[in-house]
């Protein structure tokens, strides 16, 4: 009913133009499906919930260069000052900043004997005091937080306790509750006292990104270069930097305060490569569809001009306008579907190459399918205008200029 046979034979008579169109569609499907897969993957990375009160956390670094300074005492005094500032909800030292792309990674083992013990996966290793959890805005779902008198100041103290993130607990203990378990770092024992719903680490592309631990050490005394997190309502944050600078410089001028940024700004920066990739690829896909559509329109238009006489003849012999439009649509759908099938296969091959070369995950079959459907829509839009124009060719044209 679609007159496939005459269309096919007319296509076979002048092969070069349809072959080019076919080639273009094959390549387009291959590119669009791989690109949109990568775009989707990056977007879903960017949309992961961090579990932090990103908008409310202001982070900064502090460098004390006064040789006379007692870092241990100073750290305590500074935290007190920060917490007493107006509009500050809470403040804490931390050895590393979430989502910052730099920090500590470590692992526990489940026994004191290093040779037989089983190790946990690597995790982001936060050291902090009882305020840290509140500053982060992370949600405790089992167990309890540290209390003030449980906080250690050195890595070799006894009485180590830890809060672990839920994904880490699931990965190592499965359904069993980790609460009360004793883990080891060398000979040192660590008791798990709490589970936190979500606590991302520092490295967004690391496979253990969701695995984190907070241990009860206020480590701020051990180095002159430290980072702090201050929590306040978003509307108070812009004014806070100045307040903090003034307060801390009044306490001791021999230090450099730097890198003030909110956690959401930090996140934005850390994800900028992924955002860039998603944006560039999206632009590529849009331009590709645009060029394909315009190219198609141009070619169909020229074909119609070339076939004006034939169309006029067909109309004179009784073909309806609808038949003419249908002719062009079917012709292009045929090319599009054949191209789509070959292109889809090429897309999978290309995806396989990308996977083996750059260890990207494999493109699921749904992407080529959606790309082909998208291209069908584009083809329809591109062909319908010139085809309608062709249908309006008067039958009288056939008799002229012979």
């Amino acid at each position, binding site marked *: 009913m679609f007159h496939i046979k005459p269309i096919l034979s007319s296509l076979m008579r002048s092969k*070069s*133009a349809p072959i*080019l*169109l076919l*080639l*273009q569609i094959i*390549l*387009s499907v*291959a*590119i669009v499906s*791989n*690109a949109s897969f*990568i775009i989707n993957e990056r977007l879903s990375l960017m949309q992961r919930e961090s579990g932090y009160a990103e908008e409310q956390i202001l982070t900064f670094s502090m*460098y004390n*260069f*006064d*040789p006379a300074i007692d870092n241990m005492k100073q750290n305590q005094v500074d935290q007190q000052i920060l917490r007493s500032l107006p509009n500050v909800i809470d403040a804490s030292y931390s050895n590393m900043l979430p989502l910052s792309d730099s920090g500590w990674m470590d692992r526990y083992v489940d026994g004191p004997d*290093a040779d037989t013990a089983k190790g946990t996966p690597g995790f982001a290793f936060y050291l902090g005091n009882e305020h840290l959890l509140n500053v982060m805005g992370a949600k405790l779902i089992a167990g309890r937080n540290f209390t003030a008198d449980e906080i250690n100041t*050195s*890595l*070799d103290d006894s009485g180590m306790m830890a809060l672990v993130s839920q994904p880490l607990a699931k990965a190592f203990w499965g359904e069993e509750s980790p609460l009360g378990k004793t883990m080891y*770092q*060398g000979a040192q024992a660590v008791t798990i006292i709490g589970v936190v719903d979500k606590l991302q680490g520092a490295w967004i592309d690391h496979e253990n990104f969701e695995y984190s631990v907070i241990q009860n050490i206020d480590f701020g005394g051990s*180095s*002159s*270069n430290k980072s702090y997190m201050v929590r306040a309502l978003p509307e108070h944050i812009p004014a806070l930097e100045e307040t903090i600078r003034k307060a801390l410089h009044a306490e001791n001028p*021999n*230090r*450099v305060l*730097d890198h003030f940024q909110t956690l959401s700004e930090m996140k934005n*920066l850390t994800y*900028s*490569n992924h*955002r*860039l*990739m998603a*944006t*560039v*690829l999206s632009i*590529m896909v849009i*331009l*590709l569809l645009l*060029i*394909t559509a*315009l*190219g198609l329109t*141009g*070619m169909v238009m*020229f*074909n119609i*001009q*070339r076939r004006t006489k034939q169309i006029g003849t067909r109309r004179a012999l009784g073909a309806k306008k609808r038949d003419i439009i249908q002719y062009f649509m079917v012709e292009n759908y045929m090319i599009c579907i054949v191209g789509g099938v070959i292109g889809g296969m090429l897309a999978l091959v290309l995806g396989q190459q*990308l996977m083996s*070369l*750059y260890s*990207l995950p494999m493109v699921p079959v749904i992407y080529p399918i959606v790309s082909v459907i998208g291209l069908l829509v584009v083809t329809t839009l591109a062909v319908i205008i010139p085809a309608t124009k062709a249908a309006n060719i008067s039958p009288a044209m056939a008799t002229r200029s012979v």
Partner: protein
Amino acid sequence: MFFYYCDLAWRSIRKTPMLSMLMVLAISIGIGITITTLNVYKTMSYNPAGERSEVINSVQLWSQGLDTWDEFISSITYTDAMNLRNNAELSVKAATYRTGLALQSDNPKIEPVLQSVRVTDRDFFKIFSVPFLYGSYWDANVDLRPAYQVVISQKLNLRFFEGKNSVGKTVFLDRKPYQIVGVIEDWNPQPKYYDPLNGAFNDAEEIFIPFSLTAQEEFDVWGNTSGWQFEPMLTYSDRLASEKVWIQFWTELNSEDEKQNYQSWLTRYVEQQRAIGRFTDTAKTPAEAVQISDIDKWLEDNNVVPKDNKILVGLSLLFLSVCLVNILGLLLTKFLKRAPEVGVRRAIGASRGQIFSQYMVEVGMIGFIGGVVGLLWAWGSLTALHSYFSMDQSVTGLDASMWVITPLIAISTAVLAGVYPAWVVCRTKPSVYLKTQ
């Protein structure tokens, strides 16, 4: 004749403005995208060492235990760094890492600034050909007996000493006095090949101090410290004695012989260290536990060019090929439509070659316009990358080679797209078209 063909081509382009614009648009977008990704790729994969690429070498040691890391790590331990520094096998060598210190001068009006600082040996300046404006690097014995000496950048010299020769003057780093022995000219190799570990496109440090001060001054390490076993670092001497890796080691090897000699010395070194209980991964032979990397290998191993970038280059080349096919189709239809005209020209004496070259000129012209517009696209998108994605200027600046590569791509794309249509049209038989006229 050429100019006549140009005139004809221009007329033909103007006769079908929409179609011509479409072709120019397609070719220019294809070229714009390809040039953008190629440009970023090219600047990222640039090797700043140039002809010294094979002379400058870094050393990696397989110091990790059994079943821990499964590849060479770019840095080495303090113990190994000291052993390699103190050994006379090499005449030129430098250990290096990055730290940060607060910088002040005698002038109380200038506020202290926290500066990132390179801790290294004097040969660092030789190995990386760092240009000096005033003075020079510190004396050889400073590398053995620590002294508070410093080399600063031209920029800092301008800021703290108004650009005058400051050699012999004093600056304070963390409130300790250091004597300036040299001022270097602007030096900021991109990628930062001597330390790509903390951001390959970060700026070079502007302060250089002797590595020999490390043990007594206990500088913070502003870079990665990696360990493969549990070793708490409670004090700085724990760090120095540990198996943690955090120092890069550089040397100059001028010939294959020198490289072989050093390789065998290092092999003996590993054997000797095994004898005292280090380098416990016996799955590697001592010779395998040693790696000497020249700059090309070093940049490759440290993933200076992100894999995203390689994917983008590949996809944009595919994109360009779509544009090529697109233009090919358009040119074919356009030229075939003019077949009657060609028939007449052939009948009145034009040769096939003439017809072919006439149409190739037209194709070339479209390619040329497309290339120019494409370069504009590329420039625009690179500027956008710089301003919206805070990509470094050094990566988004248009590389000089692009002025050659762009026209080359543009013309070859156009020619590839144009050869077939022009060939088809020049084969037109005059008789067929004369009949239908």
